[in-house]
């Protein structure tokens, strides 16, 4: 049951990254691919109806983590205290910038929200990527099950690292580049006209950059957490995940080559999903690794709540998850086709 919940939480988080990833990407790119007010509204029109639902995956994933592994949530959230609030403040400003931009027809008002939207969209994937980096590298958990970290120290690894060191920044940059490339495919798929052309032109270059950073990030991860490579032969799910992300990567380049952007976008979703699943499979059962002593690791086994709670949660989860997927399908179907800018006062 603990293993199942480890995977349910991982799947929820991975779906979150894929879903919010493309609207982060749209936010990162919009100053570049959308020059005029009309074009920016086209970008916002594409993600406007979706971003809030995408972020619910974070809350639902967090809720799943809370109910199944409360010790991990308690330790991680309090340990990353200041970094967590940077994430939260960025999420808040980003949401407001999407929702409020269209309310006033004024150039300065809109420039302000465009900039807020772009900056928060850059900060978030870097921080969330760095969070993943921290999970892979480990944190100074001691016997109490808690830790406390400064935002950064000397950017070196060691038993007492900061939230940001060269490795976690590298993973943050990888996350940034990947969601940007993911977002470019989404925009190429959902828009037409100049935005489509610019996104289409940028996408292959961004994906080549993803490949470069990916190799660097993988090599660094193998060095920072050798257990991952060590676990690989004994983790069949990791091989499935690797096949998934390789297939995804193949689809990305196939889709780009044939200008079939939905295919490429689905490929990049599979790439992200596969990468995260492979990481989860290789670190299992460790959820929060200790840099001080492996005995202090928080794992799916020693941090989970009792069986009755997990079984109860599973019952409603099995109802809720298909409904949530149904909403996603409904939304994409309702907003199918290319997006054009809404008339003033009629949309994002």
């Amino acid at each position, binding site marked *: 049951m603990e293993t199942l919940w480890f995977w349910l939480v991982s799947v929820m988080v991975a779906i979150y990254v894929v879903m919010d990833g493309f609207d982060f990407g749209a936010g990162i790119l919009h100053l570049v691919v959308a020059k005029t007010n009309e074009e920016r509204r086209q970008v916002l029109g594409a993600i406007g109806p979706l971003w809030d639902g995408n972020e619910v995956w974070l*809350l639902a994933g967090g809720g799943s983590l809370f109910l199944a592994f409360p010790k991990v949530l308690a330790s991680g959230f309090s340990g990353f205290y200041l970094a967590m609030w940077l994430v939260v403040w960025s999420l808040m400003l980003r*949401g407001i910038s999407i929702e409020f931009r269209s309310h006033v027809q004024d150039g300065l008002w809109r420039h302000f929200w465009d900039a807020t939207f772009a900056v928060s969209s850059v900060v978030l994937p870097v921080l969330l990527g760095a969070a993943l980096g921290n999970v892979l590298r480990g944190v100074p958990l001691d016997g109490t099950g808690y830790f406390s970290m400064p935002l950064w120290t000397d950017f070196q690894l060691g038993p007492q690292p900061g939230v940001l060191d060269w490795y976690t920044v590298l993973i943050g940059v990888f996350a940034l580049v990947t969601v940007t490339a993911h977002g470019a495919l989404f925009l190429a798929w959902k828009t037409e006209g100049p935005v489509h052309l610019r996104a289409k032109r940028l996408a292959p270059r961004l994906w080549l950059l993803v490949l470069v950073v990916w190799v660097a990030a993988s090599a660094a991860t193998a060095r920072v957490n050798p257990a991952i490579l060590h676990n690989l032969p004994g983790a069949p799910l990791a091989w499935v995940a690797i096949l998934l992300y390789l297939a995804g990567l193949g689809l990305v380049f196939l889709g780009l080559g044939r200008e079939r952007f939905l295919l490429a976008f689905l490929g990049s979703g599979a790439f992200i999903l596969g990468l995260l699943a492979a990481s989860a499979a290789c670190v299992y059962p460790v959820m929060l690794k200790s840099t001080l002593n492996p005995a202090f690791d928080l794992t799916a086994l020693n941090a989970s709540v009792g069986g009755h709670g997990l079984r109860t949660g599973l019952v409603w989860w099995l109802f809720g998850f298909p409904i949530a997927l149904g909403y996603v399908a409904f939304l994409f179907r309702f907003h199918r086709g290319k997006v054009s800018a809404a008339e003033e006062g009629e949309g994002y």
Partner: protein
Amino acid sequence: MGDPLFWHRLQFGFTATYHYLFPQLTMGLALVIVILKALGLRTGEARYSDAARFWIRIFGINFAVGVVTGIPLEFQFGTNWARFSHLSGGIIGQTLGMEGMFAFFLESSFLGLLIWGEKKLSPKGHFGAAVALWLGSWLSGYFIIATNAFMQHPTGFAVAADGTLQLTSFWAFLLNPWALGQYAHNMIASVVTGSFVVAAVGAYWTLKGIHPVQADLNLRTGTIMGLIFSVLVAFPTGDLQGKLVAKYQPITLAAMEGRFESGPRAALTLIGQPDVSERKIENPIKVPAVLSFIAYGTFSSNVKGLLEFPQDQWPQNIELLYYSFHIMAGLGTLMIGLMALAVFLLWRGKLATTRPLLWAVMLAVPFPYIATTAGWAVAEFGRQPWLIYGVLRTAQGSSPLVHAGHTAFTTLGFAGIFVVFSMLWLFLIGRELAHGPESQAH
């Protein structure tokens, strides 16, 4: 200032109070919008859908601020209340997870359709989006109230050997009697907020002599709903909530009333200042035996005073608790009176010309907000010194390694962000009010 617990409590209290200024309006307005849309579908009259369109715009602005100010609350469980989260996550994680899964997905999927979809959807489809938002926001309210009810009156759990709380009965937890009572009281209060806002806008336009059709419709809808729901918030739901407190938290009841001595035929204090060190109420005005009746249904019941309980179980801030309760109950009574008068004049056809009362209805907007905030202060100060009543003390629930300075810093950060949000909200809502309702030619 160096005590982390103080800052953790201040931060949660501050951010939760600020956040709840927005959902109380959206949850109430959601019902108003559903009613207006339903009337529009039924009668085919454009004035109903015009009114709904105006309120949907107000709803959208409010909802956005509600969503983003709600995010930090979810995070604070882990960041500031780590030991509480560790011990009780297996239980309250259920409702918080269900809120995401069953309520937030529903709301977020239909929000865009409600706000921007009127032209894309059929009238029935758009009505459906309004119903979805109403259901989603009220469902979300239930999961949060059920979570809070577990802290007020824990049910359906057992304490495991390692000190963590384990779920033993999902239904006992989810259908906690405290949750049912508090939910009814709170949701009806949210409709009161919505109604007062609608009535105030109607009164404002009537006083200005603009948008006559819409002014009349909003004034009528707001005052009639305002009267019905402000009565319901007192009776039966407020009464039920009082009896729950009397049954499960008798110490809190004594503190809310500033009652130190026990005895039958307990008097209700209408006015007076508690002096905790002297164990008495200064200059009280009391109604004999009414407190006994409110708490237990008979005038002769014994209502225990604080002195009957060990002092380490008293809420720490009895004065604030006492004032919060009396402000809530006093404003509640005042609001019933105001709306009763307004509806009486409406019935006699004189409301639109009785300018002093229109002024009063317009300026009464803060009352439901203050009453609701004070009501939650009663619930939360009344729960002290417990985080989970009778199970975990507040002092034992905070994060062990987070410094006071960090929490002070982030609390000030929130204060800054909230100032910005408040200004934006006022600016955008002010624009909508100035712009007024618009008719859509079909």
